[in-house]
């Protein structure tokens, strides 16, 4: 995870570089934690909030952690705050259908889409603390050390949360895991 030396809010090209580098991961973290479907405007809106906070927070960033850790922590907090706020309100439906797999046949694309939807629903059923670890580790591929830094927990805690989450997901996704594909 990167650690640029001096970052200033008025350094527009540095900010642009940060957004370009982190936007996909931030979007996936927000979408994963919020259980958003493809095209769901909520995830992009959350990502927008993250980068607005990054933009306004850059002058105060002291570099105690890497920029990535700082941004992913903001993303996790923003997404989980929105999940809590949304509990009292019904969630908006997906605006756009999942796109087809570019190189797969219609049957394969349908099966892949079904699997993605099943994983999304299963991850949504996890407690927030486990979901955060699954999204950061499983979707984003962060190391346990990085996951622990982002969530402000110890590495063994991150590992045990992942292990409990996987146990639960194996139960929920059993049928898809038996698939020889």
């Amino acid at each position, binding site marked *: 995870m990167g650690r640029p030396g001096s970052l200033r809010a008025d350094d527009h090209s540095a900010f642009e570089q940060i957004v370009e580098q982190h936007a996909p991961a931030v*979007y996936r973290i927000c979408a994963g934690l919020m259980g958003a479907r493809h095209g769901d405007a909520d995830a992009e809106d959350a990502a927008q909030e993250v980068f*607005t906070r990054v933009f306004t927070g850059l002058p105060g960033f002291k570099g105690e952690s890497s920029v990535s850790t700082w941004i992913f922590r903001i993303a996790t907090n923003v997404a989980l705050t929105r999940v809590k706020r949304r509990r009292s309100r019904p969630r908006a439906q997906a605006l756009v259908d999942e796109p087809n797999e570019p190189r797969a046949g219609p049957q394969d694309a349908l099966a892949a889409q079904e699997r993605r939807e099943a994983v999304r629903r299963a991850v949504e059923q996890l407690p927030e603390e486990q979901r955060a670890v699954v999204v950061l580790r499983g979707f984003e591929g962060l190391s346990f050390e990085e996951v622990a830094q982002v969530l402000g927990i110890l590495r063994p805690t991150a590992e045990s949360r992942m292990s409990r989450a996987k146990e639960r997901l194996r139960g929920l996704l059993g049928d898809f895991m038996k698939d020889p594909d």
Partner: protein
Amino acid sequence: MDLDSLFHEARPEVPEGLAARLIAGARSAEAQRRIFWADVERTGRRALAVAAAAAVITVGLAVSMVVSATAPDNTRTASLVEITVQAQLEKYLESP
């Protein structure tokens, strides 16, 4: 398929042109205003919760102080019971 492959496949797809929209949006005064008011609202809600908790504790303390000030003296009641029991016991022991 193992879980890690399922996770990889299920990664949310990033919409096209996202970074450009985010860069423009982050600098807009409107987005910064929205975040400012969201923070104000959150801080206000937290302050309200703290004030409510403080009010509950204050009322609880006041009630317990009033109850302890107006309630009969338990020590005295206990000694009266003790004297009565002792007298009854002596009477019982003295009786043939």
